[in-house]
C-alpha cells in the first residue's frame, strides 16, 4: 500500500512538470500580443513594444520557462501581467473558493444521487425509477447557463428568497455563507445528478442480478445486509471512479457557474488568463488545477482499493 502510494506521488510530480512544459508550449501559440492586450487596441505601437520588453514576453520561450521554473523552486510564482499582482496568493485564494463550491456540491450530490440510484434500481421500471430517470436526464441535458438562469429567475427574482450572488459579504456567518451557496450548488446538482444517478442505478441493477447476490440471499442474510455489504460495495466502484474523474472539472471547469453566480473561483481565473494571454497566471492556475485533479484521482484510486479487495490483495501479492 505504501509503495503504491509512493509511486503515485512520484507520478504526480512528473505530471506537474510535464503539464507546465505543455502549458508553456501552448501559450506560445495562443493568438494575440500581450502588450497589445493589456494596453488596448488604440495604444501606440512603441508603448506596446516597451511593455512587452518590460514584461519580458519578447524573450525566447525556453528562457522564460527556465526563469519561471527557478522562480517556482524558490516559491515565487511570478506576477500576473493583467492584474499586476502576485500569482500565488491569488491562485490559492481562488482554489480555496473553488474547492468550497466543489465539496459543497459533492456533499449534496453524492448521497442524493446514490440513494436515488439504489432506490430506482431496487424497483427497476417502477414509477419512481421512470420519473426520476426522465426528469434527471432532462436537467442533465440542459447546459448550466440555462439551469442557472432558471434558478436565478425563480428563486432570486420571482420568489426573492435566495441571494443570486454566491460570494457572501465580508465577515458573514456560516448560515449566510450557506445561503449564498445554495443556488450554485443547486445548479451543479442538477447538472451532474443524472450522470451519477444513472451510473449508480446501472451498476446496482447489474450487482443485484449477480451470482454473489443470489448466494447471499439464499444464505438467508437479511435484505439490508445483502444490499449494504454485497450489492452496494460492488456497485459503488464505478461511481467512485466517475466522481474522481469529475473533481478536476468541478474545481477548474466551472467557468459558467462562477460567472453566472459571480463567484470568481479558479475556473474564471484560468479562463481570464487564457483569453488575455496572461502566461504566469495561466501556468499558475493550470498547475493548481492539475494538482487537484491528480489528487482527486489518487483519492478515488485509494478508496477503490479499500472497497475492492481484489485490488488490495493484488497489490500485496506482488
Amino acid at each position: 500500500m505504501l509503495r503504491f502510494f509512493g509511486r503515485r506521488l512520484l507520478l504526480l510530480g512528473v505530471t506537474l512538470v510535464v503539464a507546465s512544459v505543455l502549458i508553456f508550449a501552448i501559450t506560445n501559440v495562443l493568438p494575440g500580443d500581450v502588450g497589445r492586450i493589456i494596453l488596448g487596441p488604440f495604444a501606440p505601437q512603441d508603448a506596446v513594444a516597451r511593455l512587452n520588453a518590460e514584461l519580458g514576453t519578447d524573450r525566447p520561450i525556453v528562457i522564460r520557462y527556465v526563469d519561471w521554473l527557478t522562480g517556482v523552486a524558490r516559491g515565487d510564482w511570478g506576477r500576473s501581467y493583467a492584474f499586476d499582482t502576485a500569482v500565488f496568493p491569488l491562485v490559492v485564494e481562488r482554489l480555496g473558493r473553488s474547492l468550497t463550491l466543489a465539496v459543497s456540491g459533492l456533499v449534496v450530490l453524492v448521497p442524493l444521487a446514490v440513494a436515488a440510484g439504489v432506490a430506482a434500481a431496487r424497483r427497476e421500471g417502477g414509477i419512481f425509477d421512470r420519473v426520476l430517470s426522465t426528469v434527471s436526464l432532462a436537467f442533465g441535458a440542459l447546459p448550466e447557463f440555462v439551469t442557472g438562469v432558471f434558478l436565478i429567475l425563480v428563486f432570486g427574482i420571482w420568489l426573492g428568497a435566495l441571494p443570486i450572488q454566491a460570494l457572501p459579504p465580508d465577515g458573514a456567518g456560516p448560515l449566510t455563507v450557506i445561503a449564498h451557496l445554495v443556488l450554485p450548488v443547486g445548479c451543479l446538482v442538477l447538472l451532474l445528478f443524472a450522470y451519477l444517478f444513472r451510473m449508480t442505478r446501472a451498476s446496482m441493477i447489474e450487482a443485484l442480478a449477480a451470482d454473489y447476490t443470489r448466494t447471499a440471499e439464499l444464505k438467508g442474510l437479511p435484505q439490508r445486509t445483502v444490499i449494504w455489504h454485497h450489492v452496494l460495495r460492488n456497485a459503488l466502484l464505478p461511481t467512485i471512479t466517475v466522481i474522481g474523474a469529475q473533481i478536476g472539472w468541478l474545481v477548474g471547469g466551472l467557468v459558467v457557474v462562477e460567472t453566472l453566480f459571480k463567484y470568481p473561483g479558479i475556473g474564471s481565473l484560468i479562463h481570464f488568463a487564457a483569453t488575455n494571454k496572461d502566461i504566469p497566471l495561466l501556468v499558475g492556475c493550470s498547475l493548481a488545477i492539475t494538482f487537484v485533479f491528480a489528487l482527486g484521482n489518487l483519492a478515488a484510486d485509494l478508496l477503490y482499493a479499500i472497497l475492492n479487495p481484489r485490488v488490495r490483495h493484488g497489490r500485496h501479492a506482488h
Partner: protein
Amino acid sequence: MVKRTDLSPLGFSTANSAVTTLGVSRRRFLAGASTLALGCALSGVAPWGALAQATPKRGGSLKVAVPAATSIDPVKLNSSGGIAIVQQTAEYLVYAEPDLSLRPVLATSWEPSEGGKVWTFKLRQGVKFHDGRPMGADDVVASFQRLVDPANASPAAGAMPFLKKEGIAKVDDHTVRFTLDRPIGTFPYFTHTYNCVILPADYAGNFAEKPIGTGPFKLVSYRPQEGAKFERNTDYWDQTKPYLDRLEIQTFESPQPMVLALQSGDIQVVQQLSYIDAQAIRNDSKIALIQADAADHRQLCMRTDMKPFDDKRVRQAVALCFDRPAMVRGLLGGLADVGNDHPIAPIYPEKIKGAQRQANIAQAKKLLADAGYPQGFPIDLYTHQYLELPQYAALTQQMLAPAGIKVNLKVEPTNLYYNHWTEVSFGLTDWTSRPVAAQILAQSFRSTAEWNAAHWKSEPFDALLAKFEAEPDVAQRGKLGTEMAAILTDEVPAVIAYFNKNLRAARTGVQGLTGSMSNYLDMAQVWVES
C-alpha cells in the same frame, strides 16, 4: 455652481452657451431629448439627467456593476471596469459633461495663448490627496510627464502625440503650463483622457496597493475579477459631495449576470450595457434606462492601396448598398443616429452640413461596372466577436449581394482581430467616443496615422485637419469639419453607417446618475432616495 470665470474665455461656444445658463439649457436639452425618446423604440428610456430632480440627500450606499477590469494602474489603464474604478478615487483637471460642456474639477480655469499652442491651467486651491498632502502644480506636472514619457507604456501617449515631457512646466504652486508641438484648439478635452487622472508626484506605479487620489471616494479594497469597495472622502474639496457613504463597484465578466443582479436588486446600477442586453429590462417598472448621445461608431474600412478598393468608385458603390435607417432599426432598435461616412457625430459642437447618402443599388452597380467589375467580386470581410459587429457583418453580406459583391465572413476572436485589423483589405472595427472630433479624425484618417486601416492618403484632408485641430473657434471648426466630411463622404475610406448611443441602467430610487458619451462614471453626484 459653475461660474463663468471658470470657463475658457476662448472657444467652446457650445460649451459656453450650455453652461453659463446651465439651468435653462439643461431644461431645453431635456425637452428636446424627451421628444426624441418618445419616438424611440425603447420605451422607458430616460434622457440623461432626467433622474436628477429632487434635492440631493446624504447617506446610504450603492452597488454598481461594470464590465471586467484588468490593471487599475492609471498609467496603463485601459479596461472599462478599471476606468470606472479609478474615476471614483482620482480626478481629472476637467470633466466633459454629457452635453460636452467642460466642468472645472482640479483646474478652475484654463487659457490658451500663442494661438492655442500654449495652454495655462489654474489649479484649484485647498485640494488634498487621500493621504492628507496638498495637491499642487508639482503633482499635475509629474502626472502628465509620467503619461507622455516614452519610458512608460501608456495608452495616453497615443492620444496626445503633440505633448512632450519637456512641454509641461510649473508656473507657480497652482499654475501649470502646457506647451504643445502645434496649436490644439480643444486641448482641455484631451486632459480628460481616461489615463490623465492627477496622482501624487511620487506615485510609484502601485495603485492597487496604495490608491491615492483626490477623488470623492477613498478606495478601501480592490480584488481582481470581483471589484472595489469605497468609502466617502470626508475631506473632499467640494464639501457638499459625495452624497453616498459607501460605494461598491463590482466587475462582471459577462453582461447577463449583471442584468440578473440588477433585476434581483443585488446591485442598483449598471454602468453600461448594450441594446441587446437591455431588452430583458426595458419593461421593468423598477428599472430606469438612461440614454446618452455618443460618438461611438463602426468603421467598415477598405484598403485604398489594394485591389479592388483602390478605385474610389468601388468604395462608393459599397457605401451605396447600405440601407442605414434599416440597420439602425434592425441592429440597435433605433438607438443610434444615421451616419454619412465621416466620424463627426451629431453630438459634437461642430455641426456638419451635407447631403445624406441613401441606398441606391442601381447606381452602385453602375459604379462597379465603370470601375471594371460589372459582375461584382468576392471579398473577405474581417471583424470580431464583439457587440453587434458579427450581425453588422452578416447584414453587410446581405446588403452587398444585390450589387454582385460576394462577402465571405471572417468573424474572429477579439485578440486575434486586433493583431491584424489595420492590415486586412476589408475590416469592420468598433470605435469608441472621444471628447473631441479631431481625435478620431486624426487617429483614423490622417495619412500618417498608425490606425489608418484604409491606408488612405489625402493631402487636402491632412491640411484641413491640421487647421481643424488648431482652430479654437467652433463656428470655424464647423466649416472646416464640413469640408473634411465632404472629402470623406466622397472618397469613402470607411463606411460609417451610424453613431451608437450609450445606455446605462439604475433601479428606481437612484438619483442624479447621468449618462456619458465615454461611459465615464461620476458617482459623486449620485444619491439614494429613502
